[in-house]
């Protein structure tokens, strides 16, 4: 319990730091919000009036406090780029799409990488392992966006399994939407699958050398019961950390892959917002993504505690 509390306090502090850094960074970036909102042709009087209205002349701490209290309630202000549109409403359209894409990629990684990693370790040094090693080596070297292009070409243009560019919104037809998202999800997941396979394989093989494995054999365990009853749980511990790191990479990967597959997610929103200097949107997306990564890390810490009994004692 103490462990959870400690981790939770760390989480809150980290989130506060991130929000401060995000806010600070955007207030340093040159460019005036009032000017970007009114356009370069606005008169100085108009700009000054808007600055007053937006409270841009207030001290930075006051503005930060205002922004933070809004952010906590999910209110990130208005977009500069689209009139009368709140950042929150822009996000609420795109977040579910990116979330589905990321979750799908993550599930693909889990479902495919774990069996393959274990298989690779079981047959280490023999046919299946050598073959897998070769394949993972190649896949890891291919960047996601290029895989995306290949997949679009193969499944979209040659096989016609999906229509590139014809994204279906989830509230229209969830099934069709998911079918479309499978392909970008594969593009994101494949290189990560290769990494996890390799990582898990090496982790299992490293555990196999430990003394407790010899003890397990000395009790009459078969090779597979040693693997499943003793080694795997130990081998998963470092993999959990690795997966947590991967989540940030999946999110980053989805920003790029969304472009390739024309998926209207947070990634696309972010890129257009950056191009249009729509700072409230950029700020909100950055805040969301980093907060998500931090929260996931918190959950991973909890998961750790469930898997590794030594952590409770360490605190």
């Amino acid at each position: 319990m103490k462990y959870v509390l400690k981790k939770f306090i760390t989480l809150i502090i980290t989130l506060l730091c991130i929000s401060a850094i995000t806010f600070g960074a955007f207030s340093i970036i040159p460019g005036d919000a009032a000017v970007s909102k009114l356009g370069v042709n606005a008169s100085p009087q108009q700009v000054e009036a808007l600055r007053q209205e937006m409270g841009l002349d207030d001290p930075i701490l006051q503005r930060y406090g205002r922004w933070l209290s809004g952010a906590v309630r999910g209110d990130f202000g208005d977009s500069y780029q689209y009139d009368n549109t709140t950042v929150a409403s822009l996000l609420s359209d795109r977040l579910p799409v990116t979330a589905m894409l990321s979750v799908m990629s993550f599930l693909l990684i889990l479902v495919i990488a774990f069996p393959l990693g274990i298989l690779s370790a079981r047959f280490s040094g023999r046919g299946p392992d050598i073959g897998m090693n070769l394949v993972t080596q190649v896949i890891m070297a291919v960047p996601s966006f290029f895989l995306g292009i290949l997949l679009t070409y193969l499944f979209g243009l040659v096989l016609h399994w999906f229509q590139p560019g014809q994204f279906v919104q989830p509230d229209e037809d969830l099934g069709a939407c998911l079918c479309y998202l499978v392909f970008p999800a594969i593009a994101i997941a494949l290189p990560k699958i290769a990494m996890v396979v390799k990582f898990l394989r090496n982790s299992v093989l490293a555990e196999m050398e430990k003394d407790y494995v010899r003890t397990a054999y000395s009790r009459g365990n078969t090779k597979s019961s040693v693997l499943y009853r003793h080694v795997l749980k130990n081998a998963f511990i470092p993999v959990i950390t690795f997966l947590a790191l991967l989540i940030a990479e999946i999110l980053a990967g989805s920003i790029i892959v969304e472009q390739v597959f024309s998926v209207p997610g947070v990634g696309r929103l972010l890129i257009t917002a950056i191009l249009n200097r729509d700072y409230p949107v950029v700020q909100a997306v950055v805040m969301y993504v980093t907060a998500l990564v931090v929260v996931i890390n918190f959950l991973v810490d909890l998961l750790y505690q469930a898997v590794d009994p030594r952590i409770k004692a360490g605190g």
Partner: protein
Amino acid sequence: MKLLEVDNLTIAFEEGRERQIVVEHAGFSMEKGEILGVVGESGSGKSMVAHCLMGLYKKNEKVIDGRILFDGQSLLAMPREERRRIQGNTMSIVFQEPMTSLNPVKKVGFQVEESLSIHRKELGKQEKKELALQALRDVELPGAEEIYESYPHELSGGMRQRVMIASAIVCRPKLLIADEATTALDVTIQAQIIRLLKKLNASTGMSVLFISHNLRVIQEICSRAIVMWQGKVVEQGTVEEIFRHPKEDYTRRLIAAIPTRKKRRNP
């Protein structure tokens, strides 16, 4: 009656064409109910013999020659599946490294009763637990119930070694191999464990192959011992004989070296 007969045992590590012999023509035998000591300096091949008896082989390890008769069965000739039925059941081992020989993420209870789960499939959950608790009490661990539910990292080195012994004796084996079971522990705990092994031997008739590089410890626990040197069994007989009339120059040096009791641990 003989429980164990080892003849002409030769073990080597082979890598490509290179062959490094680590145990050479080793032979000795053990009576039922006996505690037999094995002494020898570090690297003399004691653990190699012990692990070979257990059927635990390292990478590149090869048994080149020899015969091991255990309880009338020829161990080296039998198929792997049959060998497995002996491991942890009629023959078990306590390793040199108490701190790392237990699985860190499994409860002590699971690990103590594992041999039962493997070899006594007919036992129910509750029966297994009863036997495991009994084994924990046999090794004089206070608060067996609590230890049953704990994890290895919550126990001290001496307690872990007792847990290892408990897990080794839970199936009531005919032979317990104690491979420097006390070397890594401090002197008081060392004495306790030796007393414990003697007690178990007396009360259950379990034979013990007691390996140590400490002649004084051997003197305390065994009546008969063998001396190993550079992979060979250079001497065997009663401890008395070995002490009074050492045949080999090496044994003499070993005896001469007793007071400088060096403590070491394998990595």
